[in-house]
């Protein structure tokens, strides 16, 4: 336990909330982006999976998604605008991750990553790349945009893996 800040009470602790440490429930939809919001037209949107052997599969908006052959263990996700983020491939499989393109009955808004974003709800949300455009499959882990600047390669909120070494 760290040094005690006398007089600091904190919010009332509610035991009914199953939230990772340091997180709290929000009913709105916060926006965090490192640059301007790219405006990507669906007609020109494409999604590419590139494997470790150099094979590339490309999908246009109407085509998304089919099986890909790979022996890779890691994924580097690419986004329009240049953002990247890395995570183990197994965290993208078996329904743990989605390409999300609708929200609350409408198209996903550009500031939230529309036309389509990755959504990996069990990891910190910087892994859920907005304006997603492809996945590069790799035999060895390669850090993405924030990970290169010291953020955690995995990012489990239950273990508070914010920065390298956490």
């Amino acid at each position, binding site marked *: 336990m*760290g040094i005690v800040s006398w*007089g600091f009470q904190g919010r009332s602790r509610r035991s009914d909330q199953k939230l990772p440490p340091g997180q709290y429930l929000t009913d709105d939809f*916060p926006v965090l982006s*490192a640059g*301007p*919001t790219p405006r990507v037209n669906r007609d020109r949107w494409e999604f590419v999976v590139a494997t470790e052997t150099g094979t590339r599969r490309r999908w246009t908006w109407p085509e998304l998604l089919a099986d890909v052959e790979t022996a890779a263990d890691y994924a580097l996700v690419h986004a329009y605008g240049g953002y990247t983020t890395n995570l183990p491939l197994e965290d993208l499989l078996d329904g743990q991750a989605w390409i999300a393109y609708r929200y609350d009955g409408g198209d996903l808004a550009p500031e939230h990553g529309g036309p389509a974003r990755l959504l990996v709800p069990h990891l910190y949300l910087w892994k859920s790349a907005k304006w997603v455009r492809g996945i590069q499959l790799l035999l060895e882990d390669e850090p993405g945009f924030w990970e*290169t600047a010291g953020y955690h390669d995995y990012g489990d909120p239950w273990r508070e893996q914010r920065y390298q070494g956490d």
Partner: protein
Amino acid sequence: MARAAVPGRLAERLRWRVARLVSFVDETEAARTLVFDVPGWPGHLAGQHVDVRLTAEDGYTAQRSYSVASAPAGSQVALTVQRVADGEVSPYLADVLEVGDQIELRGPVGGWFVWRPEDPAPVLLVAGGSGIVPLMAMLRVRRAAGSRVPFRLVYSIRTPRDRYYQPELRHDDPGVDVTYLYTRTAAPGGGRPVGRISAADLQSAGWPADFEPACYVCGPTGFVEAAADLLVSLGHDPSRIRTERFGPTGG
């Protein structure tokens, strides 16, 4: 958003350090600058932030991120904290913490929203409200480094009473132009009608896109979205525009 723009990976784990409040100054009715002494502080870049951790008597902890307001100066780190209504951490920092009190802090964090004096490109700073804090660190690092890189600051606030860092920002700094945009009440004698930031504001108080300035935009999400979109529409390369958003989850 070039990968080369961010530094190498951190070699060691970011340690929590004890920070002792050595002085404070009220910037506005709602914001206070806190100067901490942090033994072992490794230094920071202009624009980086720190994580602050408070621990209650029963062991409960709360963490928040705050931009560093100061230029690197030994073991001293200044943060400017705006009281958030119903906030958990900011009212404690701004109202309860006294000189000599200790909190915990770790950092510096973030290698994207930073300015380095070695970068010769002209700089446009666009601040909305408390978004001025990391941009102020850039102005202070510029001054500390004796840099002659031309800076323009466009600072949007509700009223003249909401301006931070007065009189420091009023002090004439050669090569630094400061323009205030008031959204609710203008200063007496000001020519611009009150209102939100517009393309005309950024055209007259910013740099032409041809100059390829480095643009830093910081503030609440709506402000940052609007200002960054305006810069793109004025022809600025999106990769030259870096943003930092103070989400509604702050406090």
